[in-house]
């Protein structure tokens, strides 16, 4: 596109650039509401937590490298595996997918200029950061949560865990949940209302369907966790009796409430990864996704059915079979939508012309691991088999295949895929491929043997084992695998960091991608799109006519929406243009809300309820002040000025 040569186009771009100017320096980042900056903040923060969770994993594997090792005491080991689980799930995978990928890419993919609620977007980040720091203060002060990431009572009750460890867990998860709920609401409204005109539901990228499903699951699942944690803290701090049998409570109430959240949670983890995979595959096989409507449905159905399977985590608790059978039936059928997706991906690769670049390699690795993890998942959907392998390393193998192989691999593939768009530079392909192979082999060697030691009787969460158990060789292999995996992951980071400085310029669309983010510059300008794109299909970048029309409109100044921070809103079903919204720019309120909420939770943790209430009052005042200003658009141009030239029509 030769916009520079067209002075009218240049003028229009400059005008947009002025309107959307980002504040510079630290203050600019602190007060930003731009989805791309927020996405980047999420990205780097979650990577830091990934490193922490990974270090915890390496400590676990080093402890288990041989029988009766003493690297960690039993108490320390309990804290390390609990923090590993909490960190990876709540502080890495969810915020990385919804916060980093979702925030950065969703508005770009739908042709919008920001998320639906930019200030709430910022506050989601600050709350997430606060919750992560909150939980890690626990580790730093030697009081980390230590009853496992699902924290069963009565072990987690005050009687058996009297310190602050579990209170950090309970309040930390409620705190973190506020961030994720806000982010999820933002994602849903953005996808529903901010799509470019013409982008009906059937023309929405599959990435959006996946994120929509994950976001709906977050909204409906998190309250259950909040409730479980609230009951736990009421029991622990105020002497309530939800979970203790002596006063009519029930420990299984915790398990039910937790897993009503916990099972949808694992679909929340995997669905964005499906979205990333369904973005990468069509691009690198140069073909539209086979069975598009069924893949879209499968993403939503997996999330929906995921609310009806939670008791499969409780098959060994002695419930009546005629209750558990409801869950076994749903657990078996839920395999089918996942299988639909797998068959669609594989078929698309087979009938397309695959170009085995690094991003596609990560996705193929993901498919391999997800199939293996899915197969072990089917086996544990059968109640009798699950009762044999529950709480053994077989389960550890299963969930690492589906979570690590199934979610982290697409994340890494996505990092490589969108690196050119975000940075404007290409990564080094050969090193990329090496990083993939190291990680693939490392993952396989770490987690596959766990199936065998699990069936052989090794329980999960044990801090050591005896030589006579016969698990030594496989544990050694697993630990070596984990070091290889760590090397692969480090190589990913090194590759991207080096490429940031020495990679060749990427241009707008190095991959000939199908979705709209490849239309704009790399990196995108603050306003994303100079003109709001025309959309006629689910693969807008492959509709050359529409893209040429967009270029012509830029020259004419049509669809510029430059009278403020403006973006169009459309109807939910058919993407019909409905109104032009004015969006907020910089705001000081989100970081302030994050800070106050952090103080509030610290007070609750320390049982200073009156102070917590006072801080709550300050929060209410801050939220009131938040609404003191509203974004505006400039009024219509004066008579005599052409509305088309001004871009104000």
């Amino acid at each position, binding site marked *: 596109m030769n916009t520079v040569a067209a002075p009218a186009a240049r003028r229009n771009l400059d005008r947009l650039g002025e309107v959307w100017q980002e504040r510079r320096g630290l203050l600019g980042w602190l007060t930003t509401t731009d989805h791309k900056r927020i996405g980047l903040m999420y990205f780097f923060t979650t990577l830091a937590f990934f490193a922490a969770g990974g270090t915890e994993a390496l400590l676990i594997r080093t402890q288990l490298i041989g029988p009766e090792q003493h690297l960690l005491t039993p108490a320390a080991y309990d804290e390390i595996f609990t923090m590993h689980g909490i960190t990876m799930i709540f502080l890495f995978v969810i915020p990385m997918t919804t916060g980093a990928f979702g925030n950065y890419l969703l508005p770009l993919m739908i042709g919008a200029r920001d998320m639906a609620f930019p200030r709430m977007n910022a506050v989601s980040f600050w709350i997430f950061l606060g919750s992560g720091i909150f939980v890690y203060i626990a580790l730093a002060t030697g009081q980390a949560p230590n009853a496992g990431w699902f924290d069963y009572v009565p072990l987690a009750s005050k009687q058996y865990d009297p310190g602050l460890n579990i209170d950090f867990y309970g309040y930390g998860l409620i705190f973190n949940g506020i961030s994720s709920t806000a982010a999820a609401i933002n994602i849903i409204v953005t996808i529903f209302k901010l799509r470019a005109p013409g982008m009906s539901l*059937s023309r929405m990228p599959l990435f959006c369907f996946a994120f929509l499903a994950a976001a709906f699951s977050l909204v409906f699942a998190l309250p259950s966790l909040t409730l479980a944690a609230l009951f736990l803290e009421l029991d622990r701090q105020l002497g309530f009796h939800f979970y203790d049998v002596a006063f009519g409570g029930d420990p299984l109430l915790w398990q039910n409430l937790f897993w009503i959240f916990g099972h949808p949670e694992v679909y929340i983890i995997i669905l964005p990864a499906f979205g990333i995979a369904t973005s990468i595959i069509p691009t690198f096989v140069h073909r539209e996704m086979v069975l598009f409507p069924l893949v879209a449905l499968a993403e939503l159905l997996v999330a929906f059915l995921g609310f009806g399977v939670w008791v499969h985590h409780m098959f060994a608790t002695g419930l009546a079979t005629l209750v558990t059978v409801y869950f076994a039936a749903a657990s078996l059928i839920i395999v089918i939508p996942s299988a639909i997706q797998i068959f669609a991906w594989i078929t698309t690769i087979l009938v397309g012309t695959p170009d085995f670049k690094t991003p596609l390699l990560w996705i193929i690795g993901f498919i391999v691991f997800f199939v293996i993890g899915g197969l072990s998942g089917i086996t544990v959907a059968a109640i009798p088999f699950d009762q044999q392998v529950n709480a053994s390393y077989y389960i550890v193998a299963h969930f690492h295949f589906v979570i690590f192989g199934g979610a982290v691999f697409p994340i890494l593939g996505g990092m490589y895929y969108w690196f050119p768009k975000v940075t404007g530079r290409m990564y080094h392909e050969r090193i990329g491929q090496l990083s993939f192979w190291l990680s693939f082999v490392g993952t396989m060697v770490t987690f596959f043997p766990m199936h065998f030691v699990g069936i052989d009787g090794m329980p999960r969460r044990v801090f050591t084992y005896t030589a006579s158990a016969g698990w030594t060789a496989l544990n050694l292999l697993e630990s070596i695998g984990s070091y290889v995996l760590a090397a692969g992951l480090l190589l990913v980071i090194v590759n991207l960091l080096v490429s940031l400085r020495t990679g060749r310029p990427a241009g707008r669309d190095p991959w000939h991608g199908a979705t709209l983010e490849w239309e704009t510059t790399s990196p995108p300008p603050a306003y994303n799109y100079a003109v709001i794109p025309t959309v006629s299909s689910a693969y807008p970048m492959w509709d050359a006519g529409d893209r040429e029309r967009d270029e012509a409109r830029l020259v004419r100044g049509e669809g510029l929406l430059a009278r403020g921070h403006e973006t169009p809103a459309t109807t939910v079903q058919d993407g019909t243009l409905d109104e032009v919204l004015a969006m907020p720019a910089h705001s000081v309120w989100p970081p302030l809300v994050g800070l106050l909420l952090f103080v509030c939770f610290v007070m609750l943790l320390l049982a200073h309820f009156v102070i917590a209430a006072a801080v709550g009052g300050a929060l209410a005042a801050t939220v009131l002040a938040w609404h003191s200003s509203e974004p505006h658009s400039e009024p219509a141009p004066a008579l005599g000025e052409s509305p088309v030239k001004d871009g104000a029509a």
Partner: protein
Amino acid sequence: MSATGERIRRLNTLAWFGVLAGPVGWALQFLFGMQLGLARCESPNRRFQFPVHTTSAVFGGAGFVLGLLGLAAAFSVFRTTRPDPHTQDAAAITEGRLHFLAAVGMTVNPLTAAICLMVAVGVPLLDLCVQS
């Protein structure tokens, strides 16, 4: 409203019924059936003597039937609409979206109906309140 508008409204209702009937049927069957089973089997003193074999067959059967109705609705919309063409014409976009929803409905209803059938047949065959 014009005849075309009426047609679109009718098809829209059918399409969404086709998408939601099966899942709603499964959800209701799941909630009520599972809760009654829990009340019957997990409460001491035989407080809740619900006839769970009968109720699970009834709820499961109802969910199954709702799934079949949803399938029929989705199929009728699928046959009378065309896939999404590459156009900016509003009517064509709507029709393409309806065709897409119909495809979704035709896939989701057999799956949810299958769960309802499995439970409707399975639960009555099980002994009452035996721990697994």
